[in-house]
């Protein structure tokens, strides 16, 4: 399966409910549609989201590696500010990373994320990126892998406000399923009220290529190692720009080793 769409003109898609309801959410709330509500019950009520403000011209780089549970961040980027977040979401029975990002003029936001779900783990990333003023850019790169009864979800809304011309945004979501019992949900969404913008979004769901696996095996690699190498390639590069990039990549690799 391969679906790719790109939009470069005015377009309105369905609106997502606010990701931060004050009442306990249900699966009818779009942003919580795939959430593990049983796990959530033990975590409720959630503490207030962490609010981060990057002032005009400022910069932020952060790695987010939750031990499970719900991580909520409200991030505001002032004029010309930059933020780069790296997320490895792979621990606990239920791990949810929620980002609500507001971009002012010419701000630049990057999210590079890997989600890994094995056994009956449920991992999700839910983002709302609001381009409030002209000339801001946002890039989201998400790589998901699920095995056994694991489930990985990405719900991402990019909202371009009226007058936010020259917005440049991209959502690139790729998911890999290692077993027929695993689940991937991907929903990149656009809501655009300006007419001079570049908004690209793509989502693919696939499985490991049997031909490539046979090629690796024919050179002597045992099946588990061949799979691990292919998955390593699948997530390669996502953490290259992160602080402590090697540590993040190693953590991801060690988890991958357990999944194959």
């Amino acid at each position, binding site marked *: 399966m391969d679906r790719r769409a790109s939009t470069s003109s005015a377009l309105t898609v369905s609106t997502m409910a606010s990701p931060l309801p004050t009442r306990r959410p249900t699966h009818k709330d779009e942003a919580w549609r795939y959430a593990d509500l049983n796990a959530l019950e033990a975590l409720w009520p959630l503490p207030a989201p962490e609010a981060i403000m990057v002032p005009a011209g400022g910069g932020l780089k952060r790695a987010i590696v939750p031990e499970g549970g719900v991580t909520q961040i409200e991030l505001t980027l002032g004029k010309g500010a930059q933020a780069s977040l790296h997320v490895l979401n792979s621990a606990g029975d239920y791990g949810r990373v929620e980002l609500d990002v507001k971009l002012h003029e010419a701000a630049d936001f990057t999210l590079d994320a890997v989600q890994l779900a094995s056994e009956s783990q449920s991992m999700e990333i839910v983002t709302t990126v609001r381009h409030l003023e002209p000339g801001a850019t946002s890039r989201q790169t998400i790589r998901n892998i699920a095995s056994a009864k694991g489930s990985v979800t990405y719900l991402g809304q990019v909202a371009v406000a009226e007058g936010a011309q020259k917005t440049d945004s991209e959502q690139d979501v790729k998911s890999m399923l290692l077993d027929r019992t695993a689940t991937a949900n991907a929903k990149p969404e656009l809501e655009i009220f300006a007419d001079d913008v570049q908004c690209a979004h793509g989502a693919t769901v696939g499985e490991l290529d049997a*031909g*490539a696996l046979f090629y690796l095996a024919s050179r002597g690699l045992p099946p588990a190692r061949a799979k691990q190498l292919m998955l390593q390639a699948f997530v390669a590069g996502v953490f290259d720009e992160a602080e402590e990039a090697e540590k993040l990549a190693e953590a991801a690799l060690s988890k991958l080793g357990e999944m194959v």
Partner: protein
Amino acid sequence: MLQINNLHTTVADKPILKGLSLAINAGEVHAIMGPNGAGKSTLAYALGGRDGYDVTEGSAAFTPPRHSREGGSPEEGTELDSRLRGNDEEIDLLQLDPHERAAAGLFLGFQYPVEIPGVSNIQFLREAANAQREARGEEALSGGEFLKLAREKAGLLKMDMEMLKRPVNVGFSGGEKKRNEMVQMGILDPRLAILDETDSGLDIDALRVVGDGINKIMRAPDKAVLLITHYQRLLEYVQPDYVHILADGRIVRTGGPELAKQLEAEGYDAIMEAA
């Protein structure tokens, strides 16, 4: 080295190989030629153990000769600890998984080598070489030892070391991919190489380099080659001892190098009518 008896193979329940028999001895180079759809690639995949190529009847016995560096011989009672290591013991090839067949000394050269983005050639090959060595109960190669080996084999095939650092086959031309296959063969040092249309996609210079590479890597008393090809041109560089014609899933004719020349001159139809 390899004894194939009455091999029947189906692909998606369709019979492709219909009783193929072939014996290859150590030190020999065999060529299999045949028209499209005769079952040439199916033979390579069935021997390599690819899923979906189901052997329904027949056998393939592989007896990899002991590597010269191992010393001793089975008769002297110096038996090695791994059955994949060449104890002059017959191995039922069809019972092994693909990676075990590789460890036992089988190399499959692909007609269409697969691109693997994100994995460097050199990392992949070092892992593959060491996985094979581990399966045979041998010590792993150190980084330095491996690099030396890789440099030597890349030089043999006139391939830039920079290409070995790039992701496996990504962005390689057809000829570069085939050359890369031969470098891999040099590094992995198999006993038996089955090369599926290694000559396709090669220009005349690359053909000479690849032909030389096959001779240097595989022309040895304890090694053998099965060349699968459409055309006679590779055989100008790699002289076969035997030429077989495969048609409709069976070997219909066997001869010496002259058979390939006759085929080139007269075409498959004429030869097959005569057979």
